[in-house]
């Protein structure tokens, strides 16, 4: 082979490599760490459709909530993240942007002319924008309300016993004190737990207690941002919470998580649960929960205000531009009205107002009208860089009080002091 042939072959090979580059480039694969809940399963079932439309593969790694934060933080603090699409809980909405882990989304929105106006403003404030920019797009809402058994309220024997106890008509409770009284009554008379409670220390009991606090008229912070937890309303809330754990809830409430309460309710072994409203379509599903389907309803938290929560989509900063663009393409698609309605038809908890008013959605799920009230009346846990740590601090005190290891006044004082310390640390 002469020099000329070698040169020709070399040039040819280089050309092949150059021309072949686009075809040989790895197609983008988006990987997200997702909470293992029905909302994730709904989206996961639709992923082939997205791949067909865009050629982008999306993979979900599903975990229980309690394991997500640490795994995400480890990835986000490394040079490059294994997760290039993020599901961000509102409790991390202070921490992640403050730590500089999330890409600012305004340039993506402007470039793609993505319409943010249908998103419920309170959701945008919770899991969208903060004072420094737009870091997330709301994904779904998880405000909390009361899911309860209608068949037990209609039971003639129980109604008679309730009336005999001088309580009047057996109907959904209007105040928190009424709720706890009813819960204890059901445990004593109906052969079920009055409340399926998620009392495990940390996120489960902090979220649950927040409903008790807000419905008693209490708050974590006042209007000026000062700690207001240690108040008469807070004390009432904690006393009622402890009373319900001890006398109304299922055995094992102090180690129970969300999954435990769902199983209990699904199995027909509880009268009620204070939980995320999107649980209703799951519990009311004849295939998943035949024991209670058709016998459950959703109500606003007795007292009028429950815990408000939500998840948002985010894009990690420590990924390349092409991947970030692919992640944005997915977020646009999954939160578009068309896909959001399709998700809602399977039980999705919308963050767009136009989905709540969609005729098909309302025809299938009349309770979505109540859900909108649950969302509208919700109040939020303090969102700041140490929200996750505060859940741990508060959860420990709640667990100590409910387990009888400390009294409610001391627990409340310690929880308030812990919040003050963390707020100072965040400044």
């Amino acid at each position: 082979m002469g020099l000329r042939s070698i040169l020709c072959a070399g040039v040819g090979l280089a050309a092949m490599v150059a021309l072949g580059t686009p075809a040989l480039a790895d197609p983008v694969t988006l990987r997200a760490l997702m909470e293992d809940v029905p909302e994730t399963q709904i989206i996961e079932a639709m992923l082939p459709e997205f791949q067909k439309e865009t050629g982008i593969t999306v993979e979900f790694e599903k975990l229980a909530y309690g394991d997500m934060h640490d795994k995400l933080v480890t990835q986000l603090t490394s040079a490059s993240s294994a997760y290039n699409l993020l599901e961000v809980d509102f409790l991390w909405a202070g921490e992640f942007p403050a730590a500089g882990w999330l890409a600012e989304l305004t340039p993506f929105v402007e470039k793609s002319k993505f319409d943010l106006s249908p998103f419920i403003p309170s959701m945008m404030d919770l899991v969208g924008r903060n004072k420094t920019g737009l870091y997330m797009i709301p994904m779904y809402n998880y405000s909390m309300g009361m899911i309860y058994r209608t068949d037990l309220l209609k039971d003639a024997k129980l109604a008679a016993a309730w009336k005999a106890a001088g309580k009047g008509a057996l109907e959904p409770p209007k105040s928190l004190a009424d709720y706890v009284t009813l819960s204890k009554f059901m445990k004593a008379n109906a052969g079920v737990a009055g409340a399926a409670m998620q009392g495990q220390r940390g996120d489960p009991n902090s979220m649950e207690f927040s409903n008790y606090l807000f419905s008693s008229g209490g708050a974590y912070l006042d209007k000026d941002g000062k700690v207001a937890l240690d108040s008469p309303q807070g004390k009432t809330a904690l006393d009622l919470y402890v009373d319900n754990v001890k006398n109304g809830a299922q055995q094992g409430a102090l180690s129970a998580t969300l999954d435990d309460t769902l199983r209990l309710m699904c199995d027909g072994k509880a009268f009620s649960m204070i939980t995320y409203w999107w649980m209703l379509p799951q519990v009311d599903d004849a295939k998943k929960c035949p024991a209670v389907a058709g016998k459950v309803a959703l109500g606003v938290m007795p007292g009028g205000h429950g815990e408000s929560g939500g998840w948002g989509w985010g894009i990690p900063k420590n990924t390349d531009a092409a991947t970030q663009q692919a992640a944005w393409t997915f977020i646009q698609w999954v939160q578009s009205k068309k896909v959001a309605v399709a998700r809602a038809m399977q039980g999705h908890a919308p963050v767009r107002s136009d989905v709540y008013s969609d005729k098909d959605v309302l025809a299938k799920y009349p309770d979505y009208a109540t859900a909108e009230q649950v969302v509208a009346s919700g109040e939020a846990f303090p969102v700041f860089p140490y929200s996750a740590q505060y859940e741990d601090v508060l959860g420990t005190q709640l667990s100590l009080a409910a387990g009888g290891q400390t009294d409610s006044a001391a627990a409340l004082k310690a929880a308030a002091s812990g919040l003050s310390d963390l707020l100072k640390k965040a400044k």
Partner: protein
Amino acid sequence: MSPVWTREWRIGWGFALPGLTLLLIVMGFPLVYSAIMAVSSLTLMHPSLSPLVGGDNFATILASPGFWHALWLTFGYSLVTVTGEFVIGLGVALMLDRVTALKPVYFAILTIPMAMSPVSVGLIWRMLLQPNLGIANHLLERAGLPRLDWLGSSDLAFWTMAGIDIWQQVSFVVLILAAGLAALPREPYEAAEVDGATAVQQFWFLTLPMLRPVAAIAIIIQLINEFRTYDLTYVLTKGGPGTSTEVLSFFAYRRAFLGLSLNEGAAASFMLLAVVLAMTLAFFATLERRAGPSARAAAGGAGG
């Protein structure tokens, strides 16, 4: 130094050096880095080692009531679990020592819990002990006994966790002690039988003293293991109810990942390391003191 010795020395180091280098990289580097972290201001919100803050993080940890609670709880937990493992392990090992048929089958069964990851063990037991839907309470109820709140009661959760830990770890102790028993010389027993010693006397005056070095190894390994317990706490209770199962390693984890303070987490871990090291050294020192005279006498006899 003779030429032969020099050559052997070089060859020895030549073989050992690659392994030692690897060890230095995979063990030494993280240890040194975490030591630097422990005296730095590194948090997840401030991802920089500077400025170094000396012993501030250690002081913060020592001033925390949670640390002292976790430390004493860990001591108690290690004591309970290691004692349980040793007593049960020795009993099973003694029984297995007398078994002749199907011995490999028993050993194979015994290794199953040991081969399982603590996370799987925790999840399985969590399901079994679920108060309302789990099989444990169902069986108790069938037997006419009250249902128990295994992991949700602050009085019971500690003991439940310790029981599960013993269930998983006991097979390791059984295997070590069984190997030790199999290696014991038979002559002293034959002599004891001639002298009319009972089985209990043989166990007390022959088996236990001769088994002491092996038992000590088993105990110290398990003590270190139990002092570092983390997985079971994480899966079963998350340290609750209240703080009734918050062991030291879980405390360190909370500081590092929930509190976002990697520096304080590292400081707490070093305190854990210091306690484990101190215990190990004290244990071996005691062992050596007790074995000293006989060992020295044996050495003297051999030399004479």
